[in-house]
């Protein structure tokens, strides 16, 4: 028989009220209303303020891009020997952020973690927007952007293919695949909810647009069966991507010969770091969103606490990786490796290294305490710190390794310019703009999925407050 939800198989101890996945005594209709009304009501003033803020940052992005394209990559602080700095730091940073969305939506789905339902939509959207931001950087950082299409394996009269040995090309495929699959996954998940919105639409235009987007969804059993299969398959495809994308991104460094880059620990370390930063970003965003849109009953403290636990776990993994890098540098006996790591911690960029350690290794340790895990202010500050730390992690890896490699005669020091900063800050504008548009026009929470994890979804559910567990248990056991 098709697997019923895990809760029906395994005895669950009575959960405290606030541990419920949906609190506040919401019914199905309440859930629909809470989520759908956000997209239907008159645009709140606060939204305009947020949108204006996001657009301003997007303007910074636009100006930075235009100046970059007009003048060349020399507007940044790059030089010899540091050929990559903020550009690729930002790329890895944004790709990493995206990971949490896929993890929440796909991996947790496969593991039947029901608590994901309230945050998966927003997290997936975040993934897509973050990957869009990420893709900006490798696209923009090349010297001749008008020739960037050489990166794609397009048949051409020159008979030249890209270089399939290059990790940068693998990146193109890995991130391209990731973006495509994430977008599909997100969109498939949206279909039932878009249909719900369509059915509630008051105007004809709205109904038509939503009708198109919901692909004729009628909610029939066959639709649901196909939908569940598609969703499961896409979740299955997405799951390895969580591991593969950042693994391949880490290959950019791991396959090189540069001390500090040439490290076999990078793939798991990068994946852990990506999940770490991604969850931190989800926490930051959801803390704001649930506050602004009054969704505290759907995105509960329990959800946030679970994410904080993941932050604690992955943060500690990352800390382990930092320690292991140093151990291997010493253990390798390589003069250059040893210097690279000593230089990382005590060289000219020591300030960046210790920022990273403070934010990534020390700050998540607060989450050992339940009090902090469930404190909105603490988790908000810590999640921001984690993201700062993870940005610095990439900066430290990229810049400190490059600025002093093999031949001391070629060493240098990288200093960012305002255009480095402008593009980075501006990329948040791009992200926020997309996110603000998303929360205004699309259902931020997966209505159908949330309903699926509510007690009412259980066919044996009778009414609120009725003890239902005993018969279920006997039924299953029997």
């Amino acid at each position: 028989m098709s697997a019923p939800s895990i809760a029906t198989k395994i005895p669950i101890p009575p959960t405290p009220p606030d541990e419920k996945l949906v609190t506040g005594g919401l019914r199905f209709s309440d859930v629909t209303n809470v989520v759908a009304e956000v997209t239907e009501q008159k645009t709140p003033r606060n939204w305009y303020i947020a949108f204006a803020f996001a657009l301003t940052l997007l303007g910074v992005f636009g100006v930075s891009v235009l100046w970059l394209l007009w003048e060349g990559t020399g507007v940044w602080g790059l030089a010899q020997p540091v050929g990559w700095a903020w550009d690729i730091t930002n790329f890895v940073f944004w790709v990493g952020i995206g990971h949490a969305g896929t993890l929440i939506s796909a991996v947790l789905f496969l593991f039947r973690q029901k608590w994901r339902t309230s945050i998966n939509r927003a997290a997936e959207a975040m993934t897509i927007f973050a990957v869009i931001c990420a893709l900006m950087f490798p696209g923009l950082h090349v010297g001749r952007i008008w020739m960037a299409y050489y990166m794609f394996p397009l048949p051409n009269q020159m008979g030249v293919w890209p270089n399939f040995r290059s990790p940068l090309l693998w990146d193109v495929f890995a991130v391209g695949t990731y973006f495509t699959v994430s977008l599909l996954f997100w969109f498939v998940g949206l279909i039932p909810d878009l249909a719900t919105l369509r059915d509630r639409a008051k105007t004809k235009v709205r109904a038509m647009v939503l009708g198109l987007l919901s692909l004729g969804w009628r909610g029939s059993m066959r639709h649901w069966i196909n939908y569940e299969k598609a969703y499961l398959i896409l979740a299955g495809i997405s799951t390895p991507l969580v591991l593969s994308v950042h693994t391949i991104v880490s290959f950019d460094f791991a396959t090189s010969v540069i001390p500090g880059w040439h490290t076999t620990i990078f793939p798991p370390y990068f994946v852990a770091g990506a999940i770490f930063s991604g969850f931190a970003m989800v926490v930051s965003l959801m803390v704001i969103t649930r506050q602004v849109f009054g969704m505290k009953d759907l995105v509960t403290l329990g959800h946030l606490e679970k994410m904080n636990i993941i932050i604690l776990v992955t943060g500690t993994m990352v800390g382990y990786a930092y320690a292991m890098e140093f151990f291997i540098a010493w253990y390798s006996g390589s003069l250059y490796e040893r210097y690279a790591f000593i230089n990382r911690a005590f060289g000219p960029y020591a300030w960046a290294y210790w920022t990273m350690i403070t934010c990534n290794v020390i700050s998540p340790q607060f989450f050992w305490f339940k009090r902090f895990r469930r404190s909105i202010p603490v988790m908000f500050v810590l999640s921001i710190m984690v993201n700062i730390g993870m940005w610095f992690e990439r900066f430290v890896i990229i810049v400190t390794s490059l600025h002093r490699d093999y031949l001391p005669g070629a060493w240098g020091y990288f200093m960012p310019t305002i255009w480095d900063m402008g593009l980075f800050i501006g990329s948040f504008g791009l992200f926020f703009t997309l996110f603000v548009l998303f929360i205004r026009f699309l259902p931020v929470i997966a209505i159908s999925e949330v309903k699926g994890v509510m007690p009412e979804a259980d066919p044996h559910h009778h009414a609120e407050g009725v003890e239902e567990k005993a018969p279920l248990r006997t039924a299953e056991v029997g």
Partner: protein
Amino acid sequence: MNEQKKNSDLLPIQEDGKTYWRSVEEVAATEEFQEMLHREFPEGASELTDPVTRRSFLGLMGASFALAGLGTGCVRRPEEKIVPYAKRPEDLVPGLPQFYATTMVLGDDVVGLVVEAHEGRPTKIEGNPLHPGSAGGTSAIHQGAILSLYDPDRAVRVLHNGQESDFPSLDAALNERLEALHPKGGEGLLIIHEPSRSPAFHAQLEKVRRQFPKATIVSWDPVAHNHVTEATRIAFGQALEPVYAVAEADTIVTVEADFLGSGPNALRHAREWATRRDPDAPRGMNRLYAFEATFTVTGGAADHRVRIGAGQAGAFLRHLAWALQKEGVAVPAGIAREGQFDAKVTAALAKELAAHRGRSIIVAGRNQPAEVQAIAFALNHALGNTDRTVRYAPAFHPMEGAPDAGLRKAIDLLGQGKVDTVIVLGGNPVYDAPVDLGFDDAIVKAKHSFHLTWAPNETSARVQWVIPETHFLEEWGDAVAVDGTYSVVQPLIRPIWHGRSKIEVLSHIAGRPRSGYDIVREGFFATRGGEETWQRVLHDGLLEGSARFVAVELNASGIVRAAARLDRPQPQGMTLVFAPDAKVYDGRFANNAWLQEVPEPLTKLTWTNGALVSPATAKRLGLTNTQRVRVEVEGRSVEAGAWIQPGLADDVIVLALGYGRWRAGRVGERRGTNAYALRTTKNLWAAAGANLTPMSGTLLMATTQTHGSMEGRPIVREANLERYQREPDFAKKMVEHPPLIPLWKEHEQVGQQWGMAIDLNRCIGCNGCMVACQAENNIPVVGPEEVRRGRAMHWIRIDRYYASTNPADPTDLGDPEVVHQPVSCQHCEHAPCENVCPVAATVHSQQGGLNDMVYNRCIGTRYCANNCPYKVRRFNFLDFHQKSGMTEVRKLAFNPDVTVRTRGVMEKCTYCVQRINAARRDAKVAGQERVPDGVITPACAQACPTEAIVFGDITDPNSRVSKRKKEARNYELLGELNTKPRTSYLARIRNPNPELVS
């Protein structure tokens, strides 16, 4: 007809049958032609709004036909017209360069050159292997000269009181003065000229003297006016030039002398010195001792570099004489005197010199007081070196009196208002005359003034008439090297701006304007030989066997008297030392961006000079690099940036000449500190009692190398001769690594495989290769701000590392050893860059095995540069060619065989693939299966004065490069990464005196 004849006589150059450029200019004056030009070359002609470039465009159309495919930094390729010759000159095949021998004179240094020209456009300078002053090598300055030819800030037209004028008006004005002065025998006529090594120049000057017997004719040069002839007069009673046979010397002692790095025959010295640096050479290695307060290129190459205090050269030589005396060498009694010097070193040195009589050289710097140099001559004499390793040639038109005597006389006359007309032939005395003479104020007192100059400078701003002078690549001339070798200066191009050469102007003054060609040729026929010899001289660039040496007799008593004059109390305080710059020389190359940007050999500073101080002095004064300081001497002061130079004597400030120009052109103005502002007649080369005051703030001092320690890494591998003899392959043993397994399939190798070997034992870090590469490969300059960021574009760089000689404290750089290592693309067979390029823009060539860079394919991810362990890849971040102010005339300096890269493209050393391909083509045409060894020489190897760089086919076991690579000293830099570099290095071997090795 007669009228026309007269006019054409006045014109600068008139040769038989070669008038096509001039006719363009003549036609260009008409409106119809202008219109036609606009119609025919729409984008070129219409864009030329700068009058300078417009004129250059008109004047140079003929030469610019070949310039196709120059990028403008836009996405769209610019449209270019290629126009074939309607009538092809007989000996010219478009696309094939032509080579002519010529000569460049810089002060006393006469260097024979072979210059490459494309369609009448000189693009590259090489040394003339036949010439004794060059021996085939060139310095950075010679390499950079080509850029000065196309300098858009050159004197492009006659200026009268700052306004544009023309030659007829100038001639009228000049003739008027000459006619007025003639009846008085030239009283009131003052000619100030740069000292010249040209017989034709002196012949014309003699004619002027005959025409104007009462005229005052003086010379001035801030560097070449030194004390050498004065010293030979003391030592031998005649004006002579010492000529050193360095290859014959087993022991060389330099005292404040940069005889490998600058001055006459430096290139030859370096070449000969290097031939004796092979530890396996039959005659054994030579040994070089350098005693100096400043840190010179020679000091860096020395086996023993010993710091002595500033102004101690004389005392040191007397001390050495004393030590030699103890070894039984018959030095003139009275010059020997014990001093306060390292007894161990001097005793060992004296012993060695005594054991190598007739096979040693002692050189004192040409700027040292005459007495000091005279002692050096005496010691050489006493050691039996005269006529063996040291020979003397008659000085060529030696200077009379003190270096500044002429200038002083001129200023007196000017000050008394006795000068009607002053004619300054070249030079820049307003900028570089001793500051206490007040030349700046004096020159304006002349009623009429003329300045012949190839670039308007500070002096031009003070005269009424500025006459465009020809660059040496545009003029006929001749020169006599210090050893008497006669060579010819022949033009590669018609004067771009219709300038006149010095000899042409002199012939005009003498009343009979002639073309430079006629003057030189007639002079040659009158004194040196007939037509056949002349043709051979034109071909070879020099008259073989024209060197002359004379026998000398030592005037011992004169030297003793001179030595006594050195008994002056040692001055207190700091000493400021002036040094000619390794890049801009005396300031004349300040507007040459290649020379500005090439890093100074030791400080690695670009675009500026620093007030160099030793680490201990910096510590005492609390100075840091680039800190603003005030340098004061005799009540005059300048501001400078401090720069800590390891190995400098304590309490010495070194300030290079040639910076701080205020009228030099777009490149050279306000760069660094003007040392001339402190240089007085009394203190031409060193000023005691100087003061250095730290100030707040820092200055922009861009350096190409920020880290000077090797960090204990086996990068430059070196050993003493003794260890090498014990363990010849020590260099290979310095790195242990696991077995190296390739990740990918090996590249297939077809045909000859190219490789390079760089002998670190020969490299003196002179920078010749860097500028040669820049000229050959169209490498842009980036400017000081970008250099400071780390964006210098040189394809070959010279890493300079210091190593402490203090075993107790490895960070003590008070008295360091220095090593140089040229690093360019190593052309790895397992190239890390090739793997990582996503678009396959850097790939391995099957034919030759080069690591090729495909500019058209490059999208500029910079991943290759990141993954290059040698960090030799250079990225064009900002379209540097355009940013550095590309003009039409500057474009003529480009090598048409090499792509001009735009922004956003990675570039790097190609092993001069254009030369490889040309040689392969020629070999194929000649029916050869393989390119013979030695035919292909990359620009760096060709320029290298010491032949440190050797290139060739590594599959041929008999090629020079294969032989070098077979030497035990050969090692691969970072070979443990399994990059399999095609460039390898030969470890440096020091040859210290065994008695001095602790």
